[in-house]
């Protein structure tokens, strides 16, 4: 058996295969130092948060490991038990570093779950509205417009005033706040994709509506939605923190960053800043990191920038 290539030299000089879109996106993403820094920061925070039980010096919610003698120590002080608290301690002698990592875990989980469900819900409704048009479109878009004319914090506040605080309730409130944003974006994208050739081609092949919708239209609508998803996670986390700070979000058994900041607020007046300031910095870093990544993704995934 002889190799085909040895017989046909033309094939050897073939152009290299076109770069796959995924690689192009990764390559372009990597060219921005700021975005890489954001990604690095984000990964560090996420990994640290999810490894919290193994890397924190103390389990902040195990009452046996807390000592009231250690309460409100300034950053860097060494506690009664010989443990040094680099970020200080709160009113109950809890190590702030440990509390922040545990808090990040809760904030991230809430943000991720809420945004993912909101994305799926908004995506489905938006695409259905765009693809079928007519009455369904009108109803969905009326709802979306109505929804978006109220500021998110107000909608969430109304819902939580009614539902009461709790983990499920805040996730539900965040989903209700965010689905409309995703639905609008999904509809707009799907509308512009609907008339493209590949959809016509799929139609002329006699594929079923569901298959065209989910097999062909959906993958092509994803890039702008992924950008929105990233940025919305940041705003979900910020909104959850705000609501928890106001005392209508998570219960005190789920100490997210917002609750930590809220607990520290009473001590700010007496100059014991660290209980509020450090969780706030953690929150800020998380949000900035997500936004840096999201901004770069927006530039890289924008079809107008593809050469």
């Amino acid at each position, binding site marked *: 058996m002889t190799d085909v290539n040895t017989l046909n030299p033309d094939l050897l000089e073939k152009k290299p295969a076109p770069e796959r879109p995924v690689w192009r996106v990764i390559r372009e993403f990597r060219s921005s130092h700021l975005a890489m820094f954001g990604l690095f920061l984000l990964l560090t925070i996420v990994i640290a948060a999810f490894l919290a039980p193994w890397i924190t010096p103390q389990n902040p919610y195990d009452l046996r490991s807390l000592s009231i003698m250690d309460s409100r120590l300034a950053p860097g002080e060494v506690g009664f038990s010989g443990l040094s608290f680099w970020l200080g301690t709160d009113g109950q002698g809890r190590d702030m570093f440990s509390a922040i990592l545990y808090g990040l875990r809760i904030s991230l989980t809430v943000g991720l779950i809420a945004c993912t469900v909101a994305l799926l819900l908004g995506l489905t409704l938006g695409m259905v509205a765009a693809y079928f048009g007519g009455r369904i479109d009108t109803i969905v878009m009326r709802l979306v417009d*109505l929804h978006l*004319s*109220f*500021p998110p*914090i*107000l909608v969430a*506040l*109304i819902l*939580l*005033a*009614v*539902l*009461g605080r709790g983990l499920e309730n805040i996730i539900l409130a965040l989903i209700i706040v965010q689905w409309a944003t995703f639905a609008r974006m999904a509809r707009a994208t799907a509308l512009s994709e609907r008339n493209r050739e590949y959809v016509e081609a799929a139609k002329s092949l006699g594929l079923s509506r569901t298959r065209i919708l989910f097999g062909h239209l959906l993958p092509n609508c994803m890039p702008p939605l992924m950008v929105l998803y990233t940025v919305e996670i*940041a705003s979900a986390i*910020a909104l959850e*923190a*705000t609501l928890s*700070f*106001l*005392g*209508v979000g998570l219960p005190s058994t789920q100490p997210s960053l*917002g609750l930590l*900041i809220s607990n520290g*607020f009473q001590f*700010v*007046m007496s*100059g014991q*800043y660290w209980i*509020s*300031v450090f969780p*706030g910095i953690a*929150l*800020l870093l998380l*949000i*900035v990191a997500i*936004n840096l990544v999201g901004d770069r993704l927006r530039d890289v995934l924008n079809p107008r920038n593809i050469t």
Partner: protein
Amino acid sequence: MVYIIRRLMQAVFLALVMSFLVFAGIFSVGDPVAILIDPEATQAERVRLVAQLGLDRPFHEQYFIFLGNVLQGDFGNSFVYNRPALELILERMPATLELAFASIVIAVVLGIPLGVYAGLRHGSVGSKTIMAGSILGFSVPNFWQAIMLILIFAVILGWLPVSGRGEVGQFMGIHSSLFTLNGLKHMALPAINLAIGHLALVIRLARSGTREVRAQDYIRFARAKGLSEKRIVMVHLLRNILIPIVTLVGMSFGGLIAFAVVTESIFAWPGMGKLIIDSIHLLDRPVVVAYLIVIVMIFIILNLLVDLLYSLIDPRIRLDEVRQ
């Protein structure tokens, strides 16, 4: 006209739906009696209080009584203050409105010059600093900003007071903290806190507007005419970037009232926002329901006004009515 009437009917319908949802939700959670009553009260006293508040009746009856009263402008008495809920809210509305007004002034007065500067000197260090600051303004959660402001200006520097409204002065029949020095001092931090998000937005709009307008022919023509740079910026440029900014300011007024909830509860500013948060914590049903209905009405009216203003400012934007 048909359009306005239809919008108004939608608004009424929406308010009805909201009132029902809110009432039903509030009805199903929490027991206000447990909070209101003295723990040592006898069973008889308890029963009397329940009957007095009408809490012993079935749900639909309570709702219809409530709805009938609302239509007469009676939202019920606050369980906590024992005064009409609507009165409590209206009493606190001026404080919230003056805070929102002050922060819009701050956002516009600081935002436009900073944005125009960043647009004119694009790429300079000053411009980059301004834009970085505006990104930070977006990212930092409002409530944490407030804590930082308190920490820096009240605790460390000791310049400004942190809670309450201060002295309220009177000018042309209007009571406001804007008219006394003490009141202004009390207002400074909350107003800045509420303004920062919008300031960042105004800066962005002014900057992108400036960059766009600067390249237009009429600016070049003005320059060719030999007009001073100052006049070009102040007259020709500013006028053309103002429209989107004015729209933004109008549209964001509602958002400011909503976000005042956060600012007011941190700075103990005696406005509507603080009242609602306190009432949620105290399970003061009538006040919560009344606040929600009032705020929904404010929003419906604001949205209607913005839609109408839009078509006035820009005749190319047609209302539904014309299109159909």
